């Protein structure tokens, strides 16, 4: 599997108090644990089980993910920005790895 690479889309600037839309995507197989290989053995589950978004250290949005989420999980959500700062996104894999991405936003 290719190494998961997060992609995040959010505006570079916003006015104070504006509600912005954030779109995130990460490439991941999201193996559900329900499928079987050619020999009929179950393929072990490996999914992203948690996604979190923080702004300047404060949690904004998170989700607990089950195997019913499609491969290459996509999340779209909103955040209200009052000040310039940095968003931190993290995806937690079943294998214990965490993939993170940081992106800043400026107040006009």
């Amino acid at each position, binding site marked *: 599997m290719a190494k998961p690479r997060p992609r995040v889309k959010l505006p570079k600037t916003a006015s104070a108090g504006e*509600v912005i839309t954030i779109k995130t995507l990460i490439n991941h197989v999201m193996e559900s644990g329900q499928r079987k290989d050619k020999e009929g053995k179950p393929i072990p589950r490996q999914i992203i089980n948690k996604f979190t978004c923080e702004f300047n250290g404060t949690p904004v949005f998170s989700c607990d993910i089950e195997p019913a989420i499609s491969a290459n999980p996509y999340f779209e959500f909103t955040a209200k920005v009052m000040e310039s700062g940095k968003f931190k996104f993290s995806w937690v894999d079943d294998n214990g790895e965490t993939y993170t991405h940081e992106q800043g936003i400026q107040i006009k």
Partner: protein
Amino acid sequence: MNLSRRQVLTLSASAVAVAATGLGPSVVFADAAATEKSIAAFTGGKSPATGKITLNAPEIAENGNTVPISVSVDSEMTKDSYVQSVMVLAEGNPNPGVITFNFSPMSGEATATTRMRLAKTQNVVAIAKMNDGSVFMDKKLVKVTIGGCGG
């Protein structure tokens, strides 16, 4: 070892029987009871009211592997009144749980979009929990042409 024709036949018949039971229904689907249980665990036993929450899902999903869904809850999203979390359940999947979105007053709006898997035609349920403990529910039937859960 010499086998009579009769022995060979009984052996192969039992082999077929074993294979059939082994292969049986390879995927066990969640039933309504499992879904009810998850709902009760999420709401703390409260029965959800209708309204406030909207679940958007396609009426017909051609491919059950990626079904776009979005939820939005009518709320001010202030420190005193906001949506804590929204749980999405699929009644006919191997496991009813799909995703739980956790919001905060910093979310601005209680909306979220993602893509989910649906094994077959079934009801998708979304339940919102407010910070004051009240719960709201919405339900949509999604018809699936090609299922999306392995097999």
